[in-house]
């Protein structure tokens, strides 16, 4: 089974990488282990076929598709563009708002539709809240991968507040179907702005708390620094995006560099991995980028809450969506990275082709590249730091 694959036999010894026993010295036989589909740290139903030499990972082959729900096929078979949104919700179930928005934005671009400013502000607020919620899960589960259970529950405690805000806005806590083409399904409820401000006030000290518990923990740094280093050029070649790309030291954020909606009106900073604890692009860098992004998201939310205008959120929702022949590729910055929708319209009321370029799918594809020569425990760290959601990988 292994013979057919060309196994890399010699690895450079560098921090975070281990030399496997090669050639004549000690090498006996590799063992093939299935990590997943049911494994605590594959974040869903991912199956990694790993070839190990003792504890050292020689080769990783990801097998995906266990959660494939035919999003693209479904989208083609809808009778209406608007009906795709609940399916987009279910793609990345931890960042539904961002997915809705990505799809809605693509259709709006196809229709050349302008949405009222209040809608844009609401979308920004929702998307940034969702980004915080999603990052909280990413950080919490990453803590579990590292063996620390407590940060997970602290993160969930804070995420709960965000879900409460979503619940009071649209009634749902996980899959919102909130951002529609041309508008949003409900206007903000009374007192939402105050409660969101309260949340920002409540949340900021909790980031410090999380940092004290996990981020600057000596064991945690030892486990993550210099592990799974993703060099800049590999990251770009594999089209990694989001915190993964920024962790590798690429100063790149679609919200700033390919601005959509209202993002160019706010003041915030793009966070980049600097290799503070080890090399640039290691697991710790990817982790800290997410932590700092949460702070920036809070900044954006505060500015948006202060400036939100009045208006009717549903006036621009088209009664009937029938774009001309054409195609569009629109990318937005979801918590995991560049979420792109490529929509081909054949002039009918439903899309002829929808391709979702999901960031987790692309980010996962780089894992075999950076996992050679690490330990099993490091592989868990690497997979955890890519922050995949299998619903989005498999669509």
């Amino acid at each position, binding site marked *: 089974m292994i013979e057919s694959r060309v196994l890399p036999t010699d690895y450079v010894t560098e921090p975070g990488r281990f030399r496997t026993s090669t050639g004549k010295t000690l090498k006996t036989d590799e*063992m093939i282990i299935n990590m997943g589909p049911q494994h*605590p740290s594959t974040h869903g139903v991912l199956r990694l076929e790993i070839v190990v030499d003792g504890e050292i990972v020689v080769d990783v082959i990801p097998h995906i598709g266990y959660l494939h729900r035919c999003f693209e096929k479904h989208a083609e078979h809808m009778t209406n563009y608007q009906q795709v949104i609940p399916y987009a919700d279910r793609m990345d179930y931890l960042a539904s708002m961002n997915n809705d928005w990505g799809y809605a934005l693509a259709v709006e671009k196809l229709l050349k539709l302008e949405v009222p400013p209040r809608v844009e502000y609401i979308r920004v607020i929702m998307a940034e809240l969702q980004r915080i919620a999603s990052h909280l899960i990413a950080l919490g589960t990453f803590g579990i*991968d590292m*063996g620390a259970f*407590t940060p997970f529950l602290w993160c969930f405690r804070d995420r709960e507040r965000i879900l409460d805000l979503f619940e009071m806005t649209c009634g749902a806590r996980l899959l919102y179907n909130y951002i529609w083409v041309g508008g949003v399904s409900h206007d903000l409820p009374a007192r939402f702005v105050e409660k969101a401000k309260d949340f920002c006030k409540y949340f900021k000290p909790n980031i410090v708390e999380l940092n004290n518990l996990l981020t600057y923990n000596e*064991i945690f740094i030892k486990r993550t620094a210099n592990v799974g280093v993703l060099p800049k050029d590999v990251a770009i070649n594999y089209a990694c995006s989001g915190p993964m790309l920024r962790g590798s030291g690429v100063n790149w954020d679609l919200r700033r560099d390919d601005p959509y909606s209202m993002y160019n009106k706010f003041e915030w900073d793009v966070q980049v991995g600097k290799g503070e604890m080890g090399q640039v692009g290691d697991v710790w860098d990817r982790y800290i980028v997410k932590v700092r992004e949460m702070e920036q998201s809070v900044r954006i939310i505060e500015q948006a809450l202060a400036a939100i205008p009045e208006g009717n959120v549903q006036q621009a929702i088209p009664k009937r969506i029938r774009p001309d022949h054409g195609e569009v590729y629109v990318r937005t910055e979801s918590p995991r990275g560049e979420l792109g929708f490529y929509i081909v319209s054949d002039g009918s009321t439903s899309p002829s082709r929808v391709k979702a370029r999901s960031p987790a799918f692309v980010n996962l594809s780089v894992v075999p590249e950076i996992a050679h020569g690490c330990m099993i425990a490091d592989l868990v760290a690497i997979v955890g730091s890519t922050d995949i959601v299998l619903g989005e990988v498999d669509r």
Partner: protein
Amino acid sequence: MEELGKTILKLIPVIGDQLADISVLVFVIGAAPPLIFILLYALVTLYTEMKVSAHIQDRVAYMYTGYHGILQPVADILKLIQKEDTVPDSADKTLFRLAPYLVFIGTYAGFAVIPFSSAYMGSNINLGVFYLIAASSIVVIGLLMSGWASNNKWSLLGAMRSAAQLVSYEVPTALAVLVAVMITGSLNLNEVSKFQDGGIQNWILFGGPMPITQKLLLLPFTFITFLILFLAGMAEVNRTPFDLPEAESELVQGFNTEYSGMKFAIFYLAEYANMFLVSAVATSLFLGGWSSPFGSFMSGPVWGVFWFVMKGMFFVFVQIWMRWTLPRLRVDQLMYTSWKVMTPFLFVCIFAVGLILVL
């Protein structure tokens, strides 16, 4: 029961003849208190662990079974007893069934030499500490056995890890024990505790009952030794941050992945018992064992049990506290800690303590 005991004893040729006329019941009764203690203690610790972890994590844990969920451990154990006890089809069935008991036996055997008070000790043998280190090595065999017999690659990896870990950490444990033994001059834990009787200032952690200059010289070394002993002990118990053999996020459940029901419960029980054993050893060697911290105030055989259990439980609490706070080390870092940090430090400590004692 008596017949059975006599038959077993007769099978042992040398001592069998001498002991055959003594009722086996004597042994059974003598060995029972630690077992009863372990079972009660496991219930309490189960509850403590859940509540402590919950409060660390901003939760409340169970609240409905009895007052503040106090009956939940009982319910948990009932559930485990009722559970179907599965044995995987492709497992080595004999070894698979034997392994959890072996792990528990290894731990339980260690309790034989633990002095719960000045009046009670399972077996008052002179080589107490030595026996303890030897007996607890059986655990390694049990863990390896469970990992191998499960016929599961994750279990096997967990078993290999645990074997490597336990064997490595026995070195610092034994060396740390040696420091206390050098100061007291006895391998019997009861003697060691008696040596430290008379108040908190006589504990070996604070230099032992020595003249003041010697005491002050010993103090830093005993302190380091105690820390290393406790950490190495934690590593032997497989608790976070040293829980690599059962690292949930890496190896599913490590060596006990395939176990369920009562066998799993026995693994669990062994782990909890081991937690107390480690704390008990650290307590008897460095914190005066059953002796009261206030000299003759509140001392005596009955108070002895109280002090001993309190000190032990405090360190069990510390272990729980650390488990729910810290992440886990990696295999190579674990080995590094054992061989390159703890062991050299202990050699320095042994040398220094020896020098101070000679002077």
